[in-house]
């Protein structure tokens, strides 16, 4: 008779989650009968002999018969009973064999409903225990009469129970392998999808130069259906003239595989099935699978890029032509005007009154201004377009040269404080920077003793240069304006200025990866501070 506390204990043990999980994982409960297990119950029934033999799996609420022999209906069809009818649960809870010679007199099971309902009188059950020590159920033989089971009987059932466990565990391993396989396949499928749907063409080539793998993009780029690509010599995808050289390159690659772009600096082309050719970019890599080295090529169709580049070149060329034509065609009539104004002055100057002479003078200065202006525009437009070779520039010497070529008047003193460093950049451009800043300082100097000072300092990895003067200064509200194209602060008749100089300076400084700012106090002076990175930064 099971006491209440016993029942609670039984329930707790039978419904232990780890145990139930193990049963679930083995897929034993509510699964169809299998010949493997039926063979063993039949064997037990014949060998002992006993009318009934069961492979019984006990979960929290019932016992399920994975295999059964000799049970009467309805139990045979139901293939399960509630725990009230279960002898096997005792095997599970104890983890030990249960040997019952006469159930009606056995203290543990004498009130078990299996006796009246299933006719169980004698019972011999062995635990089915996993390697992990979980008892899933029991393998048992049952008789409808009292039996004194022999040692042989016991040993037989024990051995057969072991067979059942082996079978269960084997099936489990197979199951696990299959699951791992499915996972692997799923994982492979994912990666295959990745490669397949990649936005660029991916080709895998073996050492003999045959295509081992091609993704969808290859099909789209080259126009071959997939089955035609596999095993094809990769050279077929190149235009004829390039094929021979490629074979040699391929051999070299497999001899010394490395990840690199292919054909740096050269224009590569691919050839489609229909013979048409298109520009491509190729990145190479390699991988080793099962001791076999494979080359992996990532191909991008750069037709659009090439078109954009050529359009860009065209625009650039157009701009160059435009600038040339504009400046040339503007200059010619200007020269004419200048000449005529001068001849007019020579021939008729004596006849003109003061006002007339002033008018003529104004005409001449306007012409000169326009000529300077055009020249300035040309220079400015050349900045971005004409490439200058970058080199190490000794700024000390450069600035000294600029100063001497500017030939400042006696009352203006230009000093380099300390020494200027060597920087990497465009010599001519850098010269223009100092030329512009210094000539501005000279031009606008309003003090009887003019002082212009050039200094440099290292600041957070950059060189900082300062050109400071004690000139008239600039109002703060003009600080950004002065760098704008064609902006001047003084009426143009006072100081001849194209308004391009500072814009040029700013552009050149920025081309070298630097910045420029101005500080000033009206009446006191102005300081331009600009930075240049040591290594420069080609744009």
């Amino acid at each position, binding site marked *: 008779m099971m006491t209440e506390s016993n029942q609670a204990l039984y329930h707790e043990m039978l419904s232990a989650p780890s145990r139930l999980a193990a049963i679930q994982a083995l897929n034993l409960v509510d699964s169809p009968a299998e010949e493997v297990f039926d063979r063993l119950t039949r064997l037990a029934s014949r060998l002992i002999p006993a009318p009934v033999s069961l492979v019984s799996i006990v979960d929290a609420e019932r016992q399920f018969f994975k295999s059964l022999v000799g049970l009467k209906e309805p139990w045979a069809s139901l293939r399960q009973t509630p725990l009230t009818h279960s002898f096997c649960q005792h095997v599970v809870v104890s983890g030990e064999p249960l040997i019952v010679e006469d159930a009606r007199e056995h203290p543990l099971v004498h009130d078990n409903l299996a006796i009246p309902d299933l006719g169980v009188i004698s019972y011999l059950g062995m635990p089915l225990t996993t390697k992990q020590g979980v008892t899933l159920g029991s393998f048992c033989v049952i008789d409808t009469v009292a039996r004194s089971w022999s040692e042989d009987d016991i040993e037989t059932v024990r051995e057969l129970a072991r067979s059942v466990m082996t079978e269960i565990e084997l099936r489990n391993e197979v199951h696990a392998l299959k699951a791992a396989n499915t996972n692997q396949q799923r994982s492979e499928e994912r990666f295959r999808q990745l490669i397949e749907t990649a936005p660029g063409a991916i080709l895998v080539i073996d050492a003999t130069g045959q295509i081992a793998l091609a993704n969808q993009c290859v099909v789209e780029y080259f126009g071959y259906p997939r089955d035609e690509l596999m095993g094809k010599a990769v050279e077929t995808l190149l235009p004829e003239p390039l094929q021979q050289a490629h074979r040699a390159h391929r051999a070299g690659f497999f001899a010394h595989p490395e990840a690199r772009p292919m054909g740096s600096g050269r224009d590569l082309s691919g050839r489609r099935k229909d013979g048409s050719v298109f520009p491509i970019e190729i990145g190479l890599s390699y991988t080793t699978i099962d001791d076999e080295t494979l080359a992996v090529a990532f191909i991008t169709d750069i037709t659009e890029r090439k078109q954009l580049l050529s359009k860009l070149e065209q625009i650039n060329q157009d701009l160059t032509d435009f600038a040339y034509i504009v400046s*040339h065609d503007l200059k010619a009539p200007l*020269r*004419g005007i200048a*000449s*005529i104004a*001068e*001849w007019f002055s020579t021939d008729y100057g004596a006849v003109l009154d003061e006002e007339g002479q002033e008018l003529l003078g104004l005409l001449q200065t306007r012409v000169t201004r326009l*000529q300077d202006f055009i020249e300035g525009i040309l220079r400015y437009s050349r900045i971005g377009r004409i490439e200058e070779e970058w080199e190490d520039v000794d700024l000390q010497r450069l600035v000294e040269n600029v100063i001497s070529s500017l030939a400042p008047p006696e009352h203006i003193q230009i000093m380099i404080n300390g020494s200027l460093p060597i920087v990497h950049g465009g010599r001519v451009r850098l010269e223009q920077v100092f030329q512009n800043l210094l000539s501005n300082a000279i031009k606008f100097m309003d003090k009887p003793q003019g002082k212009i000072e050039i200094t440099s300092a290292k600041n957070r990895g950059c060189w900082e240069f300062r050109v400071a003067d004690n000139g008239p200064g600039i109002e703060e509200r003009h600080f950004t304006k002065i760098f704008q194209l064609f902006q001047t602060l003084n009426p143009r008749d006072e100081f001849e200025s194209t308004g391009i100089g500072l814009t040029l300076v700013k552009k050149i400084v920025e081309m070298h990866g630097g910045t420029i700012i101005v500080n000033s106090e009206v009446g006191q002076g102005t300081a331009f501070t600009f930075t240049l990175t040591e290594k420069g930064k080609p744009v």
Partner: protein
Amino acid sequence: MKPEKPILLVEDDRVDVMAVKRSVKALNINNPLVTASNGEEALAYLNDERNPLPAIILLDINMPRMNGIEFLRIAKQDERLKRLPVVVLTTSKEDQDRFDTFNLGASGYMLKPVDYTQFVDIIHAIHTYWSLSETAE
């Protein structure tokens, strides 16, 4: 330079023509000045055997109808004209123009200065040189 022989100026810009005229006058150069406003006109003048052959041809490059280079090419293949000294007088700084000029056998390439006084100096130099130098005829 034989003073009775003309100077042929091939130039379309009226102001540049005036510049040459004034320079010639200012320098007291006595050679008559003949102007043609493009290569075609110049050839027409030269091929008309009633016209005396010039002592020197001053040739601009950028002209309509037939530019200076084309004229030069034709003139230097013409048996009668090819030994005439040609000095190109132009605003063009194009390397190609310089190359073509000498490639075709011209005798000089001068850039027209912006300043008129310098322009006079150029004409002076050309005249002095070609007065000192002998010519084929």
